[in-house]
C-alpha cells in the first residue's frame, strides 16, 4: 500500500558477514560494555535508611493536623468521608467537655476516626474536601503487615504528635 506519511522505511536484512557470523567480536564488545558498567555509579537507594526524594505533590499516608496551639483541627464534619470515592473513612463525632479546650479546637471533635488503608486509593479528595485543613496526605509509604485489621488506622496512628512545650 502507498505510504501516506512518506516516513515508511523498508529495512533490508543483509546476510551476515563472516565477522558477524563467528559471533566473537560482538561478544567481546558486549563484555567491554558490561565491564564498563562495573565501575559506573550505583543506582541503589538503601531504602529504610535512605529515602528517595519525593515530588512535592506526593500523596502518602494521611495525618490529622493540629493547629498552632497543639489542638486537633478536625471537627468531625464528615465531608472527607463523603468525598472519599473508596469509602475508606469513617468517624464518630463527640462534644467537647469542659477542660478539654486545649485538646480540640472546636466544640465538636472526632472521637473515633478510622481510615481503612486497604481501601484508600490515595486520591487526595479528602484533603481537598476538608474545610478545616485538618487532613493532609503527607506521610510515608504504607508499610506491609500481616493482618487486615492492622490496616485500619485509628486516631493513634493518624493524629500528629502533640507540640513540644
Amino acid at each position: 500500500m502507498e505510504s501516506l506519511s512518506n516516513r515508511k522505511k523498508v529495512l533490508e536484512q543483509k546476510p551476515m558477514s563472516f565477522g558477524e557470523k563467528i559471533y566473537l567480536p560482538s561478544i567481546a564488545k558486549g563484555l567491554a560494555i558490561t565491564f564498563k558498567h562495573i565501575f559506573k555509579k550505583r543506582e541503589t537507594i538503601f531504602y529504610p535508611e535512605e529515602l528517595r526524594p519525593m515530588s512535592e505533590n506526593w500523596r502518602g499516608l494521611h495525618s490529622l493536623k493540629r493547629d498552632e496551639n497543639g489542638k486537633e483541627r478536625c471537627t468531625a464534619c464528615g465531608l472527607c468521608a463523603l468525598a472519599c470515592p473508596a469509602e475508606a473513612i469513617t468517624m464518630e463525632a463527640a462534644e467537647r467537655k469542659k477542660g478539654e479546650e486545649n485538646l480540640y479546637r472546636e466544640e465538636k471533635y472526632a472521637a473515633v476516626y478510622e481510615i481503612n488503608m486497604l481501601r484508600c486509593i490515595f486520591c487526595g479528595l479528602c484533603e481537598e474536601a476538608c474545610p478545616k485543613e485538618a487532613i493532609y496526605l503527607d506521610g510515608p509509604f504504607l508499610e506491609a503487615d500481616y493482618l487486615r485489621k492492622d490496616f485500619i488506622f485509628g486516631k493513634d496512628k493518624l493524629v500528629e504528635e502533640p507540640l513540644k512545650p
Partner: protein
Amino acid sequence: MELTFVIEKVVLVSVIFLITLGIAAYSTLAERKIAGYIQGRVGPHRAGPFGVFQPLADGGKMFFKEEIIPSQSNPFLFIAAPCLALLTASIGSAVIPWGQDVTIGDRVIQLQVANINVGILYIFGVVSLGVYGIMIAGWSSNNKYSLMGSVRAASQNISYEIAMGLSLIALLMVTQTLSLREIAEQQNGFWQNGWFSWNFFCQPIGFLIFLVCSFAECNRTPFDLPESENELVAGYHTEYSGFKLGAFLFSEYINMFVSSAVMSTLYFGGYNFPFMNDLGLSANIIAVLGVLFLFAKIFFFIFFFMWIRWTVPRFRYDQLMNLGWKVLIPLSIANIVVTGIWITVKDLL
C-alpha cells in the same frame, strides 16, 4: 605405605575439599555481587559487612526448607541423584597439580592428590559421569517436565563432551603427555625458547573450543538451558526443593571451580608465573607463590564465567546443537589437522 604419606594425602585431600566448598559457597555471593555491579546495583549487603555472611544465610535457608519427595517418585534414586551430582563435581579436583613440590626437612610433598599418568582422561571421565546425576534426577522425579529437562541437559552435555575431547587431543599432540603434572611442568615460566611457554599461545583455537565446551558442561549461560526456569519449566530439578536443590546448585559452582582449575592448568601455565626463575627465591617460596598464582588464575576464570553470564543471552536449543555439532566439532578436527601439520613441519626443520 608409610603413615606419614597417608597423613599427608589425607590432609591434602581435606584441605582441597574444604577450599573447594568454600570457593563454591562464596561463588554464589560473588555471582550476585557481580550481577549487581554489572547491572548498577550493589548485590547482597545486609548479612554482615558487604554481605559476607550471605552464603551462610543461604545455606541455613536451604537446610530449613521443607524437603518434598514426590509420592510417585523413586525415593532412593531421588535422593541419590543430587549426591551423585555433588560427588562427580568434587572428585575432579583430585588430579590437578596445585603447586610445585614443597620440601620440608627431608620430605618432598607433592601438592597433588593423585599423580596418575592419564590425568586428562580422568578429568574427561569424571565430566562424562556428571550426566548421570542429571539423568537420574530427571527420571526419578517421575515428572514429564523433569524427564524432558534431563534429556535436554544430557544431550547437551554429551554433544559438548565430544568437541571438548577433540580440542584436548590437539593439546595432547603438543604436550605429548596425558599427565597434568607434566603438562604443568612443561609450561615453566612464561617465555621459553623464543616463544611463550603457556599452552594458550600454541593452541588458541583449542582453548577457545575448550572454553565454550566447559561453559556448556557446567550448564552456565549462554548454555544454561537445563535450568531455564521461566521458559522451559526449569528442567531436571523441577521437583527438587530444599537442600537437595541446593546440592544441585552447589555442584554447578563446584564444577565451575574445577573446570577453571583445569583450564588454568592446561592452557595458562597452572602454578607457573612469569619470571619465576629469575627472582632468585627459594623453591618453597616459589611453590607457595605458584599456588597463589594458580588461584588468581582460577578466580579470573570464575569471574569470567559470571561476566559472560551477565553479558550473553541464552542460546535457543537448536542454536546450541548447531554450534556444538556443526561448528565446534569440525573446528576442533581442523585444529587437530593443523596442529599435526605444524608438528610435522617443525620436526622436519
